[in-house]
Each structure stands twice: as structure tokens, then as C-alpha cells.
């Protein structure tokens, strides 16, 4: 109803969300400039230092500066969130669009495939892929893409099923537009709104999956600074050095908060509910 009014003026929710994301993005871009220390530099004499002026967020068990690691970690985590969402989004959108548009056998086969993947224990896939391809971000992305597309495919398929009966879709067909044109120029742009909103909560999911994999011992390669792995590694020192886990943990929470806000605001703007 108020869609037109909402698009004209950015909602405060969106502004705060974008502000948070922008702050982290800025930190990531300017990491070498603003980080007070080298994120992998170990200072043997400064292990497990509590927050101080020299180290605002304290140091870890190697004497590395937590603040600097969080700033550099923003690079990895934002990249994880972006790539971890991008490929599932693209693949899922494409497959979902095909299934919804063509229906019939294509749809039946793809839907069974989706059922299988949904029923497949995520962890088996995650750990297997990482084991098969070797640990590292690219394996993580591949595993996320293999599983993550399903949600998008389902969302898009449902949307396309509705939209393809819309008058403008029928009109496009009746005007002799080719199938790819109808699908990709007319239906898809109108169908992706829900998925774009979902992207934001998915980004949170990706970050948390990365952290969970780190907890199980397979994540980003050391000594790379990444928030999830910092939390996981810091757990060993939970009771004596709370700052090792707290600050990267908070970073995840705040970034997730930012993503959620953006998702909420986009959803409101596009009239989409999850």
C-alpha cells in the first residue's frame, strides 16, 4: 500500500542497516591503514593481554592484536557473506526459474532433486566437500552453493508459478516474445524481490555456518583472521581471556544485525514477507 511512499524515502531501518554494513566494508577496505597492528604479528611478550590503550580489544594467546584481527577479518567475513550468498542466489534463481516456468518433467525432476538436498544432512555434505577439496574458503563456497541454492530455487519457483499466470506474462506470450525473453526479462525481475530479502538472512546463515565449521576444526586456514575461527579458537581461553571470543563474536552479531535490518527494510519496501 505505502510502497510508493516507502521507496521515495529511505526508512531508518535501512539507513542503520546500510550504515553498519558500510562501516564494516570501510574497515575491510581500509584495513591496512586503520588497523593498529599486523593481524598475524605475534608479540611473545604480550600474550593474553586484556583490553588496554595499546590493544583496545586485548590480545590473543599469540600476542596478536584482536582489534587488528577483527578489522582484517572483516575482509574475509564480508567476502564469505557475499560469495556465500551470491552463487546460491544465482544458481537457485536460475534453476527455480526454469522449474517454475517450464513445469512438467523439468519441474518434477528438479523438485525431487531439491527434496533430496533438503533431506541430505548438511554437515555430511559440508565436511565431505571440505575433505575432498581440501579446506579453505573455496571449498566452503562450493559446499554452501551446493546446498544454499535450494532455498532460492524454491522461492523463485513459487514466485514464477504465480507470476506466469499474471496478465502481463500472458500478454508477453501473446505478443510472440520468445520464452527466454518472457522468463528472464519479464518474469524474473519481478520474482526476485523475495529472494533479495532472503539473501540478507542467508548471509547471516553463511557467517554462522562458517563459524560452526570452524568449531568443528575445519575452517579458514590459520593464521588468517576470520571472526568465526577467532571465536572458535578463543574458546580455549574463555574463562581467562573473555575478550578473545567476545569481540569477534560481537562483530558477527552486529554484522548479522545489519544484514537483518537491510533485509527487513527491503522486505517492507518490496512488500515481501519471508
Amino acid at each position, binding site marked *: 500500500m505505502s510502497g510508493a511512499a516507502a521507496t521515495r524515502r529511505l526508512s531508518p531501518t535501512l539507513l542503520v542497516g546500510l550504515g553498519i554494513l558500510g562501516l564494516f566494508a570501510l574497515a575491510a577496505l581500509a584495513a591496512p591503514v586503520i588497523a593498529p597492528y599486523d593481524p*598475524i604479528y*605475534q608479540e*611473545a611478550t604480550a600474550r593474553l593481554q586484556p583490553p588496554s590503550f595499546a590493544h583496545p580489544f586485548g590480545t590473543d*594467546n599469540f600476542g596478536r592484536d584482536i582489534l587488528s584481527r577483527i578489522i582484517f577479518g572483516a575482509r574475509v567475513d564480508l567476502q564469505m557473506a557475499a560469495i556465500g550468498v551470491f552463487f546460491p542466489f544465482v544458481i537457485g534463481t536460475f534453476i527455480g526459474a526454469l522449474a517454475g516456468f517450464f513445469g512438467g518433467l523439468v519441474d518434477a525432476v528438479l523438485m525431487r532433486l531439491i527434496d533430496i538436498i533438503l533431506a541430505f544432512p548438511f554437515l555430511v555434505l559440508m565436511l565431505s566437500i571440505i575433505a575432498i577439496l581440501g*579446506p579453505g574458503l573455496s571449498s566452503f563456497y562450493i559446499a554452501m552453493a551446493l546446498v544454499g541454492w535450494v532455498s532460492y530455487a524454491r522461492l523463485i519457483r513459487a514466485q514464477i508459478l504465480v507470476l506466469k499466470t499474471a496478465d502481463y506474462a500472458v500478454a508477453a506470450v501473446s505478443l510472440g516474445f520468445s520464452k527466454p525473453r518472457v522468463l528472464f526479462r519479464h518474469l524474473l525481475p519481478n520474482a526476485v524481490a523475495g529472494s533479495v530479502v532472503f539473501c540478507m538472512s542467508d548471509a547471516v546463515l553463511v557467517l554462522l555456518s562458517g563459524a560452526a565449521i570452524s568449531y568443528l576444526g*575445519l575452517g579458514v586456514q*590459520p*593464521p588468517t583472521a576470520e571472526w568465526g575461527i577467532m571465536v572458535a*579458537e578463543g574458546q*580455549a581461553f574463555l574463562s581467562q581471556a573473555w575478550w578473545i571470543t567476545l569481540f569477534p563474536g560481537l562483530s558477527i552479531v552486529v554484522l548479522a544485525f545489519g544484514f537483518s535490518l537491510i533485509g527487513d527494510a527491503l522486505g517492507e519496501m518490496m512488500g515481501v514477507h519471508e
Partner: protein
Amino acid sequence: MKSAFRTSRLAAFAALLSLSASFAATSVAHAAGVLSIARNEDSTTFDPIKSAQNVDNWVFSNVFDVLVRVDATGTKLVPGLAESWSVSDDGLTYTFKLRDAKFSDGAPVTAEDAAYSLIRIRDDKGSLWSDSFKIIDTATAADAKTLVVKLKSKSVPFLSMMALPNASVLPKKLVEGAAADTFAEKPVGSGAFSLVEWRRGDRIILKKNPNYWDAAKVSLDGVEWLVIPDDNTRMLKIQAGEVDAAITVPFSRVAELKKNADLTVISDPSTREDHMLINHEHGPLAKKEVREALDMAIDKKAIVEAATFGLGEVAYSYVPKGSLYHYADNLQRPYDPEKAKKLLADAGASGLTLNYIVNAGKETDEQIAVLVQQQLSKAGVTVNLQKVDPSQSWDMLVTGDYDISVMYWTNDILDPDQKTTFVLGHDSNMNYMSRYKNEEVKALVEAARLETDPAKREAMYVTLQKMAKADVNWIDLYYSPYINVTRKNISNFHQNPLGRFFLEETVKN
């Protein structure tokens, strides 16, 4: 039944909501004399020949008994089920005299049972120890209490192997008669405790075995081995007083636990040695000078400080400190990254890049990796860390798909021969995957196995330790103790260097 279920559920909910009851109290509903021990992994089986894992051995030692035991110091063999034994002059025939002992079901332990158990570990298809016990030619019961074992060839370490929990004496009648895994579900042994229940993934419940030959000495009424995989949770569990003991305490937690007045942190010497494997077949690593340079470029003291929190000790020989024939004066190359850099340059290996396989999920290993990476960079060596899960790293080590990797070894027998053979003796595992080759060393390993004179034998092992160090077969990193923690009311909770818990001596006050 249904209404009973409902009322109890209602009661549970009421309690949950009011938060009045302390649930913690309900879960420590142990009988007074039952010792609960938290560990990080569950047992896998109760058939001793089908496991090669410490988690199983710990419990095997409680439930089963062996002919010969290793004492608490880990350096002497003492009588177990065998009261005494003798060795023939040619070293081929061993005669064991069994004491009057009973299995937990009341049946006597006979020489027949002992003979059967030894033949079984050698011949059974499911045995993981066949190779080690191939040396046995025959095992027969001369009479009800006399076991005669004939070896195919002379072997000094044989007696030590009899102390392996895997060679425990099992009741022939029960094992033979039962289907494959029935015995493993309801094991009967002659140890200090017997199995009451095994809740897989949760706990193993043992009770005191009244038929144990030394039952009078046993103070505990029972033992519970709880599985708590997460290190934090395990430590929190004992801090909350929900268990009596927690084992494998991470180094990082020791300082904090020591501050807790309710807890006792116990540090027992072990045979564990952490070392860095080097793939001798990979390019410049074939050169002794390069390996020497790496040894010099690694600051073991810093590793001991940072990764073991000062609880370990810098290692300098593959024979662990405190164990048989350890050579205390072995060479220790000083930490000198500059010299290492020069050595590398001289050997034409400047700008060396190494692929370092790290065992994922091992806190200390990951920390060492990060430290070593930085230390070696000071000597101009680039290290690429590759974190993989332990099963896979094992595979990569076997196929030689690595340059360096940190592994550890704990002895399970008292004699140094086993480790020496695996590490230096060119056996089928490529000298512990290092691909180290030195014919002279190999010959000496063979000779040491057959030498019966302890003094001569010690000399041979000292030489071996020196030669290995000179060749840098690997880089010794550190020795570390077993660190366990108990509540203050627990006493005599100890592990010997081979890992055996002496729970028959433990007291819960």
C-alpha cells in the same frame, strides 16, 4: 502409565518454571563410592583385540587383567595375573605361573584361558594386533595354572608386549561360544571392575568386581566414564562438581583450574613426545643440512611456552624422558634463525617453501603451526599451512603428500623397541612416513631387539638416539605430561607413563 507420564511431565514443567529445584544435584546422584570421570571420547568396543585406541585401553585396564603389568613409574614390569615367569636360556620359551584369580562371573582364570587369548590376538580375523603377536609360535597350558609360550625367534621386548591391555586374558568359554560381538556387549574379565551398562555416546558404568584377586585393595564401589567431547564443557562440568575427575585437560586451562580450591590438578609423566615429521624425499629436505637448519630455526622453548603454557618440556630425543634408555645428554641444537638461514643458503635452499599439514581440531597442534610458521619465516622459509582432518592428514603423510607435519607418539609398551622400529627401523611404514633411510641405523635397531644384556642394550639405544639426532630424522619438539583434574576429595588418581589409570588404588572420600 499414561497418566503417570503426564503427572511426571507436569511436575517437571512446574519445576522448570519455578527453577526452584537444583537440577545439578539430581545429576550427581552417584553412590558415594562411585568415581565419575569425564573424558572426551567414548569407547568403541569391549573386545580388546579389536581396538588400538587409548580411549578403549583405559577401560580395558579396569575390566580386564593382563599376565604382566607395567608399574606406576612406567619403567618396570610387575606381576599381573601371572605371579611369576621365567624365560628359557635361548630366549624362546616363556613360562608363566598364574595366580588364583577369578573372572567377574566367578569362573577361575586358567592357563587355558590365557593361551586361548594369546592365540586369538594372533589369529583372529578381527584382531588389529596380529602382526605384533606373529612372534608367538605356540601358547599352551601345561597345567591349570601354568602357561607356556614358545616364540618363533628371540625377542627381548616380548614380555613388555604381554602388558598390553589388548593381550588381556579373556574367558575362553564365553568368547568362543558367543557370536562375534556378543562378548563385546557383555564382557567378562578379571579386572578390578566389571561392566554394568554401556550407554553409547554417554557413559560406561562399571561396578567393583568382588571376584577380583586383589579386591580387598579396591576402595571404589564403581566407576563411571562419561563422554564430554567439548573441552570447555568438560572443565565446566568438574568445576560445577558434577563429576569427580576430568581427564585430558587442555594446557590452556591448567593455570585457571589450579586456582580453584575445590580441585586438584594432577600432572603425571607420560611417554608422549610431539615431533615434527619431515618428508626426506621432498627436494632440499633430503639434505641433512637443510633439516638441521629447520631444527635450528624452530624455537622449541617458545613453543613450550606458548602452546603448552610452560607445562611441557623441550624434547631432544625420540625416546621420551623418563622412559627406558632415554639419553639425557643428547644433542640440542640451539635456536638460531640467522645461522639456519645461512645453512639453508649454503645448501642452496634459500627461499624454501614448505607445505605444512596441520591436524584440524587439535588446539595445540594448530597453535604450534601458527608459531612455527612465524619462526621459520625468520629463517627465510615460507610455510603454507594446510589444515585437514586427522584421518586425511594420515593419508597424506602415508602418500608423502607433505613437507612437514607435527605428530605425536605415546608408547604403549615399556620397551623402546616398538617405537624405535617404527621410527628408525625401516619397517613397512617408511619410518613413520618420514622416508628416512640409514642402513647403519637399521642394522642397529635389529641388533638391539635381540640384545639381552641390559647394559649393552642401553648403549645401543643411546647410539641410536645420537644417530637419529645427527641425521635429523625428525625434529623433536616437546615432552608433555598427562594432565588430569579431580575434585579435592579424590586421592590416588594416577596414570602411569603408558597411560594406564590405577583406579583400583583411587579413593573417593
